[in-house]
């Protein structure tokens, strides 16, 4: 740019031709500061990266998004500790056997052992979904284009889905072997408390980053809730709502949604904070 143009520009900026003339040498000096041009290799690499992303956007159909979701689920399948699967399987299996034995010697009602065991089994698995000890590969995760919340949702879906399937299988076995146990009433008796207790465990773990503490808290709440059923004759000094009752189920569903949203919000924010720290 020649001096005439520069002076005109400076005059426009300062509203003073005298000031503009004074500042002209400053601009001359300033423009001596040359920036290095980009290397051809850098431009090529950049266009390659952007080209791949553009291609992915072009293919961004519903099926492509579903495929991406499936990939995230598969990746988390390897991350979730295998002990969680094994423990859930054993506890649900034992719950089914205990309920079968119990139903042979007792009158059947909604508070079958299975109704008490399934929620705790699921909450235990969910409690171990998150936390520093569960996330040894945090740094690798942070470099992936998947958001921390998507990762948490994927793990939640996996573990809760696994427990749900085993719960349904256990209920199906019980209703097949015992004519006095109906499938749907049994499922609806444990499903709402299981969802509520799992979401509570999830929130507790994201808040405390301590799966053990979260599990203990959920277990404590569940024992307190069922103490009068487990130990006949015990009276609590305060009233505890019956979480297995049909009337409390809508509230449990609502609470489960709220707790899960809070856990995802807090878990994602915390991951974001860790990302900043990393």
């Amino acid at each position, binding site marked *: *740019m020649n001096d005439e143009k520069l002076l005109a*520009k*400076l005059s*426009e*900026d*300062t*509203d003073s031709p005298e*000031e503009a003339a*004074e*500042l002209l040498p*400053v*601009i001359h*000096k*300033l*423009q*001596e*500061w*040359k*920036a*290095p*041009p*980009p290397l051809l290799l*850098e*431009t090529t690499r*950049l*266009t390659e*990266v*952007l*080209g791949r*992303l*553009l*291609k992915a*956007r*072009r293919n961004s159909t519903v099926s492509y998004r579903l495929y991406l979701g499936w990939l995230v689920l598969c990746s988390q399948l390897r991350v979730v500790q295998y002990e969680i699967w094994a423990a859930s399987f054993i506890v649900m299996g034992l719950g089914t056997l205990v309920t079968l034995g119990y139903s042979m010697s007792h009158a059947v009602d909604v508070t079958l052992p299975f109704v008490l065991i399934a929620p705790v089994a699921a909450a235990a698995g969910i409690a171990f979904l998150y936390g520093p000890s569960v996330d040894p590969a945090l740094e690798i995760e942070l470099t992936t284009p998947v958001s921390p919340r998507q990762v948490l949702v994927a793990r939640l879906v996996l573990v809760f889905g696994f427990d749900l399937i085993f719960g349904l299988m256990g209920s199906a076995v019980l209703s097949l072997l015992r004519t006095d146990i109906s499938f749907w009433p049994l499922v609806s008796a444990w499903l709402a408390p299981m969802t509520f207790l799992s979401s509570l465990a999830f929130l507790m773990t994201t808040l405390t980053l301590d799966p053990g503490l979260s599990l203990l808290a959920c277990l404590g709440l569940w024992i307190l809730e069922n103490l009068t059923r487990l130990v006949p004759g015990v009276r609590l000094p305060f009233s505890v709502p019956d979480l297995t009752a049909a009337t409390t189920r809508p509230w449990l569903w609502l609470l489960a949604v709220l707790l899960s949203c809070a856990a995802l919000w807090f878990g994602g924010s915390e991951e974001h904070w860790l990302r*900043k*720290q990393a």
Partner: protein
Amino acid sequence: MALFSDEQLALGIQHGRADDLTLLVERHHGPLLGFLYRMTGGDRALAEDLVQETFLRLLSKIDSYRYPRPLKPWLYAIAVNIARDHYKQAEFRHTDSMPTQFEISVAGTPETELVTNEETQQVATAMNNLPLLQREVILLRYFHELSLDEISQILQVPVGTIKSRLSVGLQRLKERLTAER
């Protein structure tokens, strides 16, 4: 005169045309690197990272682009925001935001290089001592040929504020360069 304007290329990118994306990157990679290199006080590697982030953000937001809105101010607005974010994070981490030694690019004979290097170092140091808000307007105005209106669009502040930042920034620069001589 370019065969296709930036705005036409942006339209092509919206339609998924990879050639248009390549053309846009080739056209703006150098100027953006220059802008961010000077914004980061001569940290070339950091500037290159920020350029990449600028293009990634442009691509992720390309659907919100409305033709024939000028693209260059939008691109520089993204770059400015990315540079600001970088400094905010640097502040958050309590690390030095500026390199202590600048890697200054000069070309010429060894003698002229030595003199020029020293002078350029002075300019770089003087620029880096300016507040970010003044530094960005001076760079956009005197290195990237943007009008006051365009800078006003980029920074989302009135033209009067831009002029005031320019005036104060240039005066400070003048004082520093005179004092160091």
